[in-house]
């Protein structure tokens, strides 16, 4: 059996979904035989591979780098999974959507009484005007809501995919779970 290539990506999130992924614990070993983790914050690789079977996306699309990244990833991924509420709904990062990017930057960097107050622009990507859920930017194949989704949910969904079944998370997780 050929192993499926898997990638995991952080966009704008708290990494909690990755923690939950690791919470799969010993079952990771079961998965290990079936997958090859080709790209992830957990492995040391700079470029996204040419072709990946399954990519798990954590986090929302909040800045220009997120946007560039997700478009590239979509083009090189067979099955794209929105993992967790930030990717699925925008969640906490999207709280700023009611206010707008600029006022948030002003509040964070300019209003506090700081020495040389300035909004950072060098070496950081510019914020998008609106924080987006992943599926509003690129096509998404599987949604796993939750904040974070439980390890069981992630494991089951992955197992389904590895066995060429369409995963069903209905009733197993929810927004905010």
């Amino acid at each position: 059996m050929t192993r499926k290539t898997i990638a995991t990506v952080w966009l704008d999130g708290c990494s909690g979904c990755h923690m939950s992924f690791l919470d799969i614990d010993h079952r990771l070993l079961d998965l290990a035989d079936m997958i090859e983790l080709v790209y992830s914050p957990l492995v040391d690789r700079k470029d996204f591979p040419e072709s990946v079977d399954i990519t798990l996306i954590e986090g929302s699309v909040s800045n220009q780098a997120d946007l560039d990244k997700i478009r590239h990833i979509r083009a090189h991924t067979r099955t794209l999974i929105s993992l967790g509420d930030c990717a699925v709904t925008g969640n906490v990062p999207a709280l700023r959507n009611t206010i707008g990017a600029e006022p948030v930057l002003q509040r964070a960097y300019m209003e506090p009484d700081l020495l040389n107050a300035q909004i950072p622009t060098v070496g950081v990507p510019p914020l998008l005007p609106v924080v987006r859920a992943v599926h509003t930017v690129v096509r998404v194949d599987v949604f796993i809501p939750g904040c974070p989704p439980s390890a069981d949910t992630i494991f089951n969904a992955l197992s389904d995919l590895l066995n060429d079944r369409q995963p069903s998370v209905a009733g197993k997780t929810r927004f905010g779970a």
Partner: protein
Amino acid sequence: MNPEELHSLAEERREALDQFQHRVVVCTGTACQAAQSRKIIEALDGIVKERGINGRCTVSAGGCRGLCSAGPMVAVEPTDVLYQGVTPDDAASIIDSLESEPVKALTCDTSAPFFTRQKRVVLEYEGRLNPESIDDYIAAGGFSTFVRILTEMTSGDVIEQIRQSGLGGRGGAGYSTALKWSTVAKALGTTKYVICNGDEGDPGAFMDRSVMEDYPFKVLEGMMIAAFAVGAQEGFVYVRAEYPLAVKRLKQAIRQAEKYSLLGNNICGTSFSLKLDVRLGAGAFVCGEETALIASIEGKRGSPRPRPPYPAESGLWGCPTLINNVETYANVVPILREGAEWFAGIGTERSKGTKVFALSGAIVNTGLIEVPMGISLREIIYDIGGGIPNGRRFKAVQTGGPSGGCIPEQYLDMPVDYQSLAQVGSIMGSGGMIVMDESSCMVDVAKFFMEFCMTESCGKCIPCRVGTAQMYRLLDKISQGRARLQDLEVLEELCDMVKHTSLCGLGQAAPNPVLSTLRYFREEYLAHIVDHVCPAGVCKIAHEEIAL
């Protein structure tokens, strides 16, 4: 007042009018008033006095002649001369020519198709009556039908006549008027109401306004007959506050009718009593929906409620209530005067009578017209309307306002009736007819109507409240050339859902302008989405990155 008194009053008034050899009637409809027709009356009056002929010639304010684009209109009776584009400076030449040939330069050709192709039932007096004088109306035979019915007919007879006439509700859907009346007549309860829906809210519609302003007595008489038929003792005319002249004239008309005891207790010495009053809207399109209208009369937010129960069973203050539109009531008197058979002879097999339309947009003759049902769109637009000005091409005609659709060229020969219009994805609606040429963008038109529905949604039910806002956002995105093809799919999905799940007619019909433009002008949507261009050059295309 009894029939004899009414008759002699009419005679008296007719004689009084006949004393004048010349009657000059100046249109005081909205368009003509905007063109200073009040000043024309002053000028004419001045000249008449100056010439010392005030014993032979009278100048009066009249109603709309229909051809608003040629206003201000002045008519001379009894020679039936019609002048157009009159200014106060023309007063002398008009008065001085009364005994001789009409003023050539000002004469409006009444043998033009605009006049000859119309069939006037609702607008039968063609603006000749002074809308502020009950005597004028009575002299023209007004209230004689009501008085005759009151003294000679039963409720059942009246409803049977209406049934045989085939009259359908002119508010838009064409629901059988007789069925409505008999439901209210049969409903249990001693307290019943009649309501006249004068909350004409469609943008691009001003028929009911004209009818209320020009023929307030005729509308009241229709309501009085309806009240008699269904057994109501009280009624309201609900008029939008944006129509102050209509409000004023209806209130005046009610006072005058009360003075003649045509309204009040034991009318004509019968056991029938009726009190009518005017209620003002306050700027809410949704109040045209009957349950919202009732809530508004009760002093509440104009939110519709689910039907059934229908107002016929449980309406105003929980009592059986008859609600008809202005134009429907205005048809009642002619039907009962001329007979159901006569009325049923006008129109088509399934749509009887005439329909009043407000013709506007990219068309030569804008104004108010009344045509027999079944006439083709082409006849209306090209013969009566005079075609498209500025050498442009016809693109679509919009009927039914925000609840209707855009009809393309291929259906121009289609007969105008309730069924045919529905078949092509529009509705008759209350009668707004807006002609568009190639300079109109169909995406922009759809967006315009969706913005309307979004801001006029009462907010009670989810599909209409949220769905219209989402459809508007998508249409805005499309019009800016920033949408993706998936957005079009979502738009269509929203149309289907909002149409089938909204609580009232506003939401249920809100997707119609989108659906009809998608049906006939899909390529225009695609041009915005795929090629990022607006073919009509109306929309401002954004050149920023797509999808953000």
